[in-house]
Each structure stands twice: as structure tokens, then as C-alpha cells.
């Protein structure tokens, strides 16, 4: 687990295979948004039920009202329990916002965990608008409300990320004079960190978004930074613009050894 005040914490899990993966924890605000969506859904379902039960009034008003009270109660308690159980830790609200409830060890949710975390809302919702739960979330290292603590659960962000399509950008690459010096390329690959490589890709992809002067200044600063990492023969760099230099860096880093 890593995290701290002012940045989003994440749960880090090391699998028995030795692979480490992290799960970004949901902030109280996003959780409240998901809860808001669920509240709207519950209200809509209750309104639909009320309309449907109007038909029953013909038979008996007493039974219609009794069924309504019972169903409203079952719906308010049962909605999150049933959906989190059926959809592996998600309700409609959590799906919309991209959140998921997981076991604090990264394992699957048990039915008892789902029931306990939802029944504990009785305390988390005190005195109103989940004040206690929200406060617990803010103070807890792992953004847990009291119900999560009792149930041993965490709420994580679960975005449906896709494999990135970097081929488009790489496909536009041209002749790279760095390829004439494989040993220097290897050194560059070794020294460029993932974040630095990513920064170059983003800067090149968004080149048209920059003001021309700013682009020249930015690419100049970036090219200088990478020039200091590895020194290529000056004769190969003659007449090369900063942007071309960065394209060569990106090509070397992302294309690998061609």
C-alpha cells in the first residue's frame, strides 16, 4: 500500500508469481458521486413500484400500502447487496463512475463482506449525507468508510483501459540517423526512463496544439535534456531541428532495435 495526504493512494499487491500490480483507491468524492447515481436509480425504482402498486389498490388499499412499505425497505437495503453480489462488487452507480468493491487482499468478494459493508451504512450515514463515513474515508489510509473496515473491503477505481494505439504515431516515423550508431542507441534506451519516453511521445503527438513559439522553446528544452544523456557524433546532428531530434529519440526508444 502506498499513498499519502494530497495524492491518490493505491493498493499494491504482489502475486505469488512475483508480479506486482497496483489498484488505485477511489476518493470519497467519486464514491459519493456513485452513491448519488444509485440513489437516483433507487428513487426511480420506488416511483415505478408506487405506480405499479396503484393497480393493487383496487383489491385492497391496506395490502397495497403494506407491500409498498415492505418493498421500499427491501429495495433500499437489498439494492446494493444484490448488485454487488451479482456484478462482482459493482452497482449501477459504481459502474457509471468506474469503481469496484474488492477484498482488501485483492481477492474476490464474499457474500458476508457485501452484507456487512452495506448494513454498516447505518453508522456511516450518521448524522446525514454519510458524514461519518466520509470522515472515516478521509482519515483512513486506505480510504475506507467504517463499513469497509468491518467488511475488510476497499473501493478501487476500475477504469476499462484499452491497449494504447501507439502504432499510429510510430508509423509516421522517417529515417532515423541514430540507427547508424547502435551502441549509442542502446545507451539512450538504457538511460531514458518510462516517464521521459512517455513525455516525448505526448509532446510529439500534441505538437499542433502548441503555439509555434512555445513549441520551439519546449522542444528546444527537451532536446537539450536528451542531448546531455548521450552524445551522438556532431556530423550526424548537423542541421537537425530539435523536433527531429526528439522524433529520433522516440523512434529509438519505442521501436527498439530494428
Amino acid at each position, binding site marked *: 500500500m502506498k499513498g499519502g495526504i494530497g495524492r491518490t493512494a493505491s493498493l499494491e499487491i504482489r502475486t505469488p508469481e512475483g508480479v506486482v500490480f497496483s489498484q488505485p483507491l477511489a476518493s470519497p468524492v467519486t464514491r459519493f458521486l456513485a452513491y448519488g447515481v444509485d440513489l437516483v436509480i433507487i428513487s426511480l425504482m420506488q416511483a415505478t413500484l408506487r405506480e405499479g402498486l396503484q393497480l393493487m389498490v383496487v383489491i385492497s388499499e*391496506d395490502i397495497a*400500502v403494506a407491500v409498498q412499505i415492505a418493498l421500499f425497505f427491501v429495495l433500499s437495503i437489498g439494492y446494493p447487496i444484490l448488485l454487488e453480489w451479482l456484478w462482482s462488487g459493482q452497482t449501477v452507480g459504481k459502474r457509471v463512475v468506474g469503481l469496484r468493491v474488492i477484498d482488501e487482499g485483492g481477492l474476490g468478494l464474499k457474500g458476508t463482506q457485501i452484507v456487512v459493508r452495506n448494513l454498516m451504512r447505518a453508522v456511516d450515514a450518521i448524522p446525514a449525507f454519510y458524514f461519518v463515513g466520509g470522515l472515516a474515508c478521509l482519515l483512513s489510509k486506505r480510504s475506507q468508510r467504517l463499513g469497509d473496515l468491518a467488511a475488510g473491503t476497499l473501493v478501487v477505481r476500475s477504469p476499462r483501459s484499452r491497449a494504447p494505439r501507439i502504432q499510429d504515431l510510430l508509423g509516421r516515423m522517417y529515417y532515423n540517423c541514430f540507427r547508424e550508431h547502435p551502441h549509442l542507441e542502446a545507451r539512450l534506451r538504457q538511460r531514458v526512463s518510462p516517464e521521459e519516453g512517455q513525455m516525448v511521445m505526448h509532446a510529439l503527438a500534441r505538437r499542433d496544439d502548441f503555439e509555434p513559439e512555445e513549441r520551439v522553446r519546449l522542444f528546444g528544452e527537451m532536446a537539450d535534456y536528451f542531448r546531455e544523456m548521450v552524445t551522438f557524433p556532431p556530423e550526424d546532428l548537423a542541421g537537425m531541428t530539435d523536433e527531429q531530434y526528439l522524433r529520433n529519440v522516440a523512434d529509438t526508444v519505442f521501436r527498439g532495435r530494428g
Partner: protein
Amino acid sequence: MILDLDQFVRREQGFWKELESFLGKFEGRSDTRFTLEDARRFHYLFQRTSSDLAKIQTFSAEPELKRYLETLVARSYPHVHEERGRRRGSFAGWFASTFPRAFRRHYKAFWLAILTALVGSAFGTFVVLADPDSKHVLLPFSHLLGDPSERVAEEEKRAADPEERADQGGRRGTFSAYLMQNNIRVSITALALGLTYGVGTFIVMFYNGTILGAVFADYIHAGESEFLFAWLLPHGVIELPAIFIAAQAGLVLGRAMLGWGTNVPLRGRLRRVRPDLVTLILGASILLVWAGLVESFLSQHHEPVIPYSVKIAFGLVELVLLVIYLAWCGRHEKREESRG
């Protein structure tokens, strides 16, 4: 060394997509079952993707791809590494054995909840006898604020009037549903307040005991004991134990929070008591549904419609059955387990 990312993605993408389609099936239905071949393939895909993630973490320059693979591995991980088996059983088996056994496992917490309520009721009795006007502060229900003898006379007069009876009969279902959901809500609160190290549960029990003590003192003092027992016993013998069971669950939770007499860390203690908490609160809720039905359809009928003696006898029979159920049901299985 940095991977040839383009080639790497092209080579592995098929496996990632296949793993994703497996996960879609798993996450769509919680009870999905796979053949042995499917399980083997899923395990292979998980290992392959984990290995891709390991490569990416060490060599790559692509945070987006890393996040994508992390999501895949994180989603697959519980399906591969979950050791805790799913217990499947019938509701009848649960009701006949699991619930009473969970109750007996934590019987001390149950008695503690009763004791707290008794202390509360002693306080309520004392306050009402010492200062009858304090009823207005203690009792939350308007029909209990008046003179007990006047209420008894009024209820009996209403019971004798066929029109009044028909009118009341037309509201029984609503009243019953209201009672059920209100009592279940109180029970859930008593359980959840266990999170306050049990303090909140004690307060709820003490408060409920105070109200009960005040009502008892008020009616007995007015010489209306028969009406009182006939009114409260049919539903009270189930409703009160049910609320005590919910409080018992709250106190079990409170004890797990405190961690008295054990070196097990908080998470472990909570994990251990969790199934019993759910069993107890579910059992209490079922008892409260029964109590709600009895309260609405039997307790509110007074003499001359139903003689008080019949109502009292009904309550006592219920109590005996409840004691037998909670004290004996499921004992046989425990012996078999210990032999096994």
C-alpha cells in the same frame, strides 16, 4: 534493455483479449462455472499476462499499457488465487442449524445485551414510579402517554364495536409492514453501532430497556397487568429476543474491534466474526417478520374478541418454542463435526 513495444503488443494482444473475454464471463455472473480445460486456459492466460506486466514494469516506456495490464491482472487475480470456498447450503439447513449454533457460540453477548436492557428497564421503572410526569420525556409513543386504565377501557370498547373493528382490520397489513421494517432498522442499527466498540449498542439496549421498564411500571402500577401481558407477550416474546440477538451481534462486533484476550490483528478478528454477524442479523430479521405479523394480527385484538388468557398462553408457547429452537437445534451437527 527496452522491448520492441510495437512487436510485443502485436504478439501478446490476442492473449490479453482472450483473458478479457474470460473475465467478462466471470464478472457477468457470480456463479459461472468452467470446465477443467477452460480453467487451465484461464490460468495460462493469467500467468502469461502477469509475465507481460513484469516485462513492461522493468523494460518498457508505456504507462498506458502498464495500466491496462495491471487492470487485467488485478481482475484475474481473485479468480486464480481465491482459496476461501463458497459455502452452499439450503435455507432450511441454515435456519435449522447455522443460526442457532451461531447464537450459542456468542451466548454471553446475548446475556450481556439482556442485562443492559434490564438495567435500563430498572431505571425506567424507578423514574416513572418516582416521577409519573417523566413519562412524557421517556415514552416516544403518544398512545402510551395517557392513563393506562383509560386506554384499556377504550381499547376494549373499540374491540366490542363491529364498525371500529372493521376499520382497524383494514389497516392491519400496513401496520404490520411498518412494524417489521422499523424493528429491522433498529436491529441493523444495534448491530452497526458495534463499530463504536460496542458503546452505541449498549446505549440502544439501555434506551429500549428504559422505555420498556417505564411502560411496565406504568401499567402494573395502574393494576392493568393482565392487559399488559396479553398485549405484549404474543409478539414481545419473539420481538425482544430478536432485538437482543441483533444487539448480541453488535456486541460481538464491538468485542472484535476491542480485541480483548487475543493476539489476532483487527482485520483477522473481524474476518473471523463476519459470518456470524450476518447469520445473527438475518436470523433476527426473520424473527422480526414473524413478530410483526403477530403484533398486527393478534396483539392488537383485545377482549372480548380474544380472551387475554389465550393471548398470554400463545405468547408463552412461542417463548418455549423459541428457547427450544435456540438452545437445541443444530446440536447434533456439532457432535458430528467434533467426531469428524
